[in-house]
């Protein structure tokens, strides 16, 4: 049990929740800072996507803040917060279980990143494959990829446009490229390919 330093301050955290219930942002920041890393790592470990884990963690804290009036009688803050995260993660996994495409995305995210080599590419052929790979991803991901590649938008501008955080946009792009690469390596002999082309993102 290497993770905990000292014993858990139950009374202290219950008090923080009381303060949060009254709208105290500083108290909320304390809880947020205390749990952001653990909850995030937990979700990433179970779903293998930093972008989606960010969404789940954000939803969790958003839910805590927006429903803060219900925090007054929470008996065990740590378990309460964990339960919300766990339930959202279970729901995510249940959705993946019903969708084979998502399973492939999850698996692609598990693959280790290999340093790209720069080689001459055969644009035309690979472009079709890239589009095919893209078509397997969600609408949102396709849109973000197009904004980045076709419209040349920066991550910051994409973030503004979509309402997502910059880090989320970046993680999504990284995951899309990873997916395309894994997809291509399974479907084409041209591997090293336009990694140099894609590396502009």
């Amino acid at each position, binding site marked *: 049990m290497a993770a905990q330093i000292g014993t858990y301050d139950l009374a202290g955290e219950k008090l923080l929740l009381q303060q949060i219930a009254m709208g105290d942002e500083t108290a909320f920041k304390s809880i*947020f800072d205390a749990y952001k890393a*653990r909850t995030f790592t937990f979700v990433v470990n179970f779903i293998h996507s930093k972008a989606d884990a960010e969404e789940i963690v954000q939803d969790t804290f958003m839910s805590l*803040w927006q429903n803060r009036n219900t925090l007054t009688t929470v008996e065990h803050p740590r378990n309460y917060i964990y339960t919300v995260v766990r339930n959202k993660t279970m729901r995510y996994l249940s959705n993946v279980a*019903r969708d084979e*495409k998502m399973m492939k995305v999850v698996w692609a995210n598990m693959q280790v990143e290999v340093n790209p080599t720069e080689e001459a590419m055969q644009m035309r052929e690979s472009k079709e494959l890239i589009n095919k790979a893209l078509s397997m991803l969600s609408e949102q991901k396709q849109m973000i990829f197009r904004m980045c590649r076709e419209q040349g938008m920066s991550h910051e501008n994409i973030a503004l446009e979509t309402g997502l955080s910059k880090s989320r946009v970046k993680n999504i792009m990284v995951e899309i490229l990873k997916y395309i690469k894994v997809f291509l390596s399974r479907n084409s002999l041209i591997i090293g390919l336009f990694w140099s082309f894609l590396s502009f993102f």
Partner: protein
Amino acid sequence: MSQTKEQFEALLSKYLDKSCSLNEVKELFSYVGNPEYQERLEIVMDKHYKTLVPGAEVHDVDWEEMFNSIVDDRKKTKVRSLWSRVIPIAAAIIVVVSAGMLIWGNQQEKNQKTQTASIKKDIAPGGNKAILKLADGTEIVLDGHSTGMLANEDGTKISKTADGMLLYDATKSTGHVTAAATENHINTLSTPSGGQYMLILPDKTKVWLNAESSISYPSVFAGEERNVSLIGEAYFEVSKDKQHPFKVKAGAAEVKVLGTHFNIMSYAQEGQTQVSLAEGSVRVDLGNDSKVLSPGQQASIKAGSTHITLRNVDIDEVTNWKNGLFQFDNTPLEQVMRQIERWYSVDVVYEGVKPDLYITGMISRSNNVSKILTLIEETGGIEFEIGDKQIVVKKSKRR
């Protein structure tokens, strides 16, 4: 491949290690969809959470930005997102609420005072929405009122005929389609939380799909058997065809039918699979155990069990969801709340000890959640707090 605890834990271990193959990932997720393994997964998760050490990936998130967007958000009115869902179904609500009959009671003392759910927000009910995935991987979102032909697969015309109904018309398929050719041409219809849909299969079998469910089937039934698989809940009216038995795979069970009307409930959360027969005849197979049902009977398979239990049920109660009604008969509160979770797309959180309450009654699924919660509160001893995509259950302060 038979599923075992050891296999599940081995796969899960590899998954967490990131050392599994694509097939192993698929195999692992087949466990995730199975009610038997839900609890086991939770145990692993709980242990993992307590002992994990946050890693370098934590630096790939902009936490300042996240915090700011959460606290700034309180200034925006959340009402807008509710209205956009309420308005299209407002007509349905007006008609159906007046027709809803309500009979409430439970095993505890009835509370004389009426209480209203503390409503700062309310949550609109689910509606007709689903995602159809074709054999080639194309996904079509079925949401909205447009009708018309969607696709053509193996000679079968796929069209959306009315709000909430999908039709597979195989009558004009030309030439012979072999079983081998269509084996891999599987379509999947999935509903999200808060979604429901009706489907007419290529053999004219009717399927009503409840929320958080998905059904997989071929675009043409060309083999000896008509095979489909189900996660979640669906009601079937199978078209008669003695030569080609209709089989549904749900969790660990397989249901074989000739021509009949029945309901299958197989959600991972409920910890069991239940097959209830309205009309006709079905056989339920689970490993070595096999039971034939008569109308009015229900076969129940608890997660982890190797045998099937039969009992008599009120079939209307089991299938009323497809008629747009929630129906409960001495149903434990937790089960009621899980149905609410799936239909209203919310998380339910319990404060303190879970109340020992049983609910009996019937109410339309078209109501906003507050209506149902208010009625449950009236039975006494319990209070609900409706939040944003969340409902908190607590002991009532009043007696």
